[in-house]
């Protein structure tokens, strides 16, 4: 990104870089994967009669995340902005995702939109999605032709 020469010789980052390279090798065998992961990463759980969606969206305030639920799809949308007043060339390292993002997830079943609730704490969005009444498992007899 930037050369080793840095304003008046104060360059603690030299050490940073070396150390980080070393740590990556020893502790992070999936280093190459870290940079291609999607933002925000989402986990989905089943808990009783509801789905639970958790998304890691650090750095955003609750009102900066748009959440839409329709039938069986959940859409999350937002924009992560860089802190203002910091020039591009003052960055020594940039690994965090910034910019517009959107994710659409299709759930295995329909959900009751009116009962969906969400909370956003410590950069983690948690959405509770109760299954719709008619979406509970049904047994359907399979008949063979002829």
């Amino acid at each position, binding site marked *: 990104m930037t050369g080793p020469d840095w304003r008046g010789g104060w360059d603690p980052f030299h050490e940073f870089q070396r*150390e980080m390279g070393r740590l990556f090798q020893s502790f992070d065998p999936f280093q190459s994967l870290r940079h291609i992961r999607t933002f925000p990463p989402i986990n989905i759980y089943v808990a009783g009669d509801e789905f*639970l969606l958790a998304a*890691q*969206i650090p750095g955003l*305030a609750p009102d900066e995340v748009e959440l839409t639920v329709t039938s069986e799809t959940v859409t999350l949308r937002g924009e992560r902005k860089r802190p203002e007043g910091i020039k591009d060339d003052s960055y020594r390292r940039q690994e965090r995702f910034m910019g517009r993002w959107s994710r659409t997830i299709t759930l295995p079943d329909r959900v009751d939109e009116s009962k969906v609730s969400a909370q956003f704490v410590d950069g983690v969005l948690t959405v509770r999605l109760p299954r719709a009444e008619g979406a509970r498992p049904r047994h359907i007899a399979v008949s063979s032709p002829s």
Partner: protein
Amino acid sequence: MSEAHPSIRVPLGPSSTPPAPSGDAAAGEVPPLARPTITPPIDIHDGPEGLTLEADLPGATEENLIIQLEHNVLSLDARLVAPAPEGARPIHQEFPLGDYHRSFILSDDVDRERITAELKNGVLKVFLPKADRARARRIEIKS
């Protein structure tokens, strides 16, 4: 939405109450864990007063985040609390549940006494102020 504490100050203890068994010289090492270790992505930018380090630690709280400065190693450790209740069955997983860990070697140009940290919306911001000129120069000769 926890807007009551929009910004949390994280105390920085120089090698006080380390929860992990003391590794002394091998301060950057973590003990073997059953949970995966997650390397959080970071940004570092510089300003006239010093460096600012920002790390994405979604799910980290003031209680489970440990910032340690031991000798010249600054380490960040946090435990990711499961977002689902006990017994919930994962059907799709893009992020692992594990422990955040990352460490850095600070040069002597950082004024360690004045390092401050702040945790907000899952982002940790650590400010590493520049030491005064005289001190920095003295260290330069040494190294």
